[in-house]
């Protein structure tokens, strides 16, 4: 069935899948956001244990999604993978370090004889939450603001500055997205605490901090989006494939793709609604509204970056080196093979849903932290 699709259709399909993975990743970064709040919300050992354990049962989903996001990008748009990872070396390396220290921290934190002490592993979790969210936000923002590379006729890339990606941190628009993601992750983390822990003290504190974090999130998000819609974008000429600057490019993209417009709108409303029901209606289900809202919003932003004759990884060093989903993708054959594999995705989502429900059936409480029957972090 996929053989009949054109190369472009396959490229679009895979951009959609990669975008969806990216969107799910941002939602699942509620784990990272939660990690930055362990000491803010948990004032005693047992309280912190509840927070760490509720996140600890989910951290692997986020981690695996990140790994799969990277793998899918490599598979479908290898020129992005080779250009960005090999060029923006330092940004990606720092992100990776932040995830390495996360992966051991849950398991090692409460174990006796763990060399560095529990506190160190809690700091690791905090660092992961802080750096992981902000730098991933900054890295994704370069999809709109551009990066500093050249690509030669053999498709080999060179980075134009020895900062190797750190220059992205000097761009205010990039930073706005980084901080937006950071506060969004904290908002989602708090909503997840509210949803998954059965404890009045933690609930009250979570609601209070939800308010404090929602305000910077909303302000930063609005700045990022308005700025995005007003800025010039890297457009691609359909005929010549030449890249040129187009004023209000992303606003134009939004208008030319009404479905994306609707998805963005519904997404933003969903995120806000989740926050509001948790604050005002005392609902514990805010995470689902905000979560689905996050997925729709981030998905729409990715689609704005890649669809409608837009360069998704523009180069401001050499505009004609800019990457589009067409010039950076895998061959038609490979994309076709991978598309068949993608048919397994609903099945994967199905068993994740089933296992998630089985584990979350009972909320975490103080008693469970004393239990000998289950694995405690």
């Amino acid at each position, binding site marked *: 069935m996929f053989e009949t699709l054109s190369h472009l259709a396959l490229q679009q399909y895979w951009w959609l899948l990669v975008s969806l993975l990216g969107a799910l990743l941002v939602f699942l970064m509620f784990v990272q956001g939660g990690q930055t709040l362990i000491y803010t919300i948990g004032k005693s050992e047992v309280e912190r244990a509840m927070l760490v354990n509720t996140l600890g*049962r989910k951290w*692997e*989903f986020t981690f*695996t999604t990140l*790994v*799969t996001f*990277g*793998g*899918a990008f*490599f*598979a*479908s748009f*290898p020129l992005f*993978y*080779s*250009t*960005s*990872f*090999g060029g923006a070396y*330092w940004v*990606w*390396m720092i992100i*990776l370090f932040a*995830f390495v220290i996360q*992966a*051991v921290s849950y*398991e*090692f934190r*409460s*174990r*006796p*004889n*763990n*060399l*560095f002490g529990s506190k160190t592993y809690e700091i690791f979790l905090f660092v992961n939450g802080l750096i992981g969210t902000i730098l991933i936000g900054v890295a994704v923002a370069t999809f709109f603001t551009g990066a500093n590379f050249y690509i030669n*006729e*053999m*498709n*080999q*890339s060179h*980075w134009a500055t*020895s900062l190797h990606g750190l220059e992205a941190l000097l761009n205010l628009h990039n930073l706005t997205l980084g901080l937006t993601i950071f506060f969004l992750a904290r908002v989602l983390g708090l909503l997840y605490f509210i949803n998954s822990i059965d404890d009045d003290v933690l609930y009250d504190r979570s609601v209070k901090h939800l308010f404090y974090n929602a305000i910077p999130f909303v302000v930063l998000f609005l700045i990022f989006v308005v700025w995005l819609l007003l800025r010039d974008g890297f457009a691609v000429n359909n005929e010549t494939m030449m890249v040129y600057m187009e004023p209000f490019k992303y606003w134009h993209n939004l208008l030319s793709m009404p479905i994306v417009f609707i998805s963005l709108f519904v997404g933003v409303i969903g995120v806000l609604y989740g926050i509001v029901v948790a604050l005002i209606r005392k609902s514990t289900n805010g995470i689902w509204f905000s979560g689905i809202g996050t997925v729709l919003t981030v998905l729409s932003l990715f689609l704005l970056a890649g669809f409608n004759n837009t360069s998704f990884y523009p180069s401001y060093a050499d505009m004609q080196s800019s990457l589009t989903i067409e010039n950076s993708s*895998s*061959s038609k*054959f*490979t994309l076709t*093979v*991978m598309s068949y*594999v993608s048919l*397994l995705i609903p099945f*994967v989502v199905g*068993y*994740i849903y089933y*296992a998630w429900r*089985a584990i979350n059936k009972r909320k975490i409480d103080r008693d469970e932290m004393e239990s*000998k*029957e*289950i*694995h*405690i972090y």
Partner: protein
Amino acid sequence: MEHIDLSLVDWSRAQFALTAMYHWVFVPLTLGLSFIIAFMESIYVKTGDEKWKKTTRFWMKLFGINFAIGVATGIILEFEFGTNWSNYSWFVGDIFGAPLAIEGIMAFFMESTFIAVMFFGWDKVSKKFHLTATWLTAIGANISALWILVANAWMQNPVGMQFNPDTARMEMVNFWDVLYSPSAISKFIHTTTSGFVLAAVFVIGISSWFLLKKRHQLMAKRSMLVSSVFGIIASITLIVSGDSSARDIAKYQPVKFAAMEALYEGKTQAPLVAIGLIGKLNYDSITKDTKDDFLIKIEIPNMLSYLAFMDPNAFVPGIKDLVLGNEDYNILSVIEKIKRGYVAQQSLKLYKETEKTDKVLHEALKAKFTDSQWLNTYFRYFGYGSYYDDDSKIMESNAFKVVPPVSLTFYAFHLMVILGGHFLLLFLIVLYLVVINRIEKYKIVLYTALWTIPLVYIASQSGWIVAEVGRQPWVIQDLMTTMNAVSKIDSSSVIITFILFAVLFTGLLIAELGIMIKQIKIGPKDGGH
């Protein structure tokens, strides 16, 4: 050839070796222990015996500690292809990416979803569902290994692809050729069963310690029984697949094969060096006067010829035959390969240059890249072209650069094989003694089992040294050298990340060992559950 900073290549290699070897400290135990746990839990579910549950949970706890650090060291590798081997990742992305994406979709999620059920589901889901989750974790972990090993096998023996001069990369034309390449199948079986053997040794070694300390004796003996049976089956499969792996290497990577045996001069009825001590370590470049320099060697007559070609009289080419060529046996010299590879590289360059200037020539060149005779004569040596030099003297010395470090490859190979035999013997003895219920009387066996734990890790790492050092200088056999694969970043950046990884991973390893040993001392009773 464009100038590439040698220290950049060396540091990038060092970093990849460091991170890959650290990752491989933890992966084999995950691969094998996941199955051992699944066997144990199956017995528990079948018999309802709570002691089996306790046994299962003890090993599961150690599994969890090991798994976490395995995940931590693994994420680096996936991204390192891009960060440090950027040119390589473009050149092969069309082939390599697909297995990696499949791995993410099929295996990683299976593993990470069901591992959560395995650890946190004991009182939340039914016994049957829990057991299923344990099995799916084991299967997921091992499927994870499948795809990355398929990709690795492809680099050793590239098949199922075609070069596209427009994109300047390899493109997949047959997925099944990639998946079912003989190298991929033997590599997958050999690697996963090596993990099974490692885990069996691990469980038997720790159980021996319990018996020596006279603690948890029932659990220890039961664990030994399960693991020695598993170990015997795995060892036999390991040896058989190692054998077929060796034949693949003899066929597709003859220089590596010669290096594994430190065979400089080709021979018919070639003997296999069973044990050997090389006098001078050959780290300097080899020349045509280099001879083998064994201080001691014990040989098995005709065995190498048989091992390589299933024929005790077959000719096994030595390093010098392969580099200098041997007309009697139809072996092309490396100089000739360099010249042909250079023609292929120049054709690609000209193809790019004529794109806008000379349509006719451009089209003619394009046709070459689909002409199977031209591809077979010139393009298959594409990577060799990087050693071309107008000065024939330089080119002659360059020819020997296709030889990997001989001593390291030789020792790693022999250590792996000898230790492999030791493990099988140990499993057989342990199984026998457990079955006749006298194992605790044989302290020497218990001590040997305990001290075999470090040996199995050494054997396991040696296997990868043979595979990865032995194939140098190629990152993709005959098509791309390691030097051409590297990302163009300043070597100081790589040095810094190398040091950061070395410090971080070493720290985490020490922490992991501390936790692991503590948990073993605490035993199956308590400790976080």
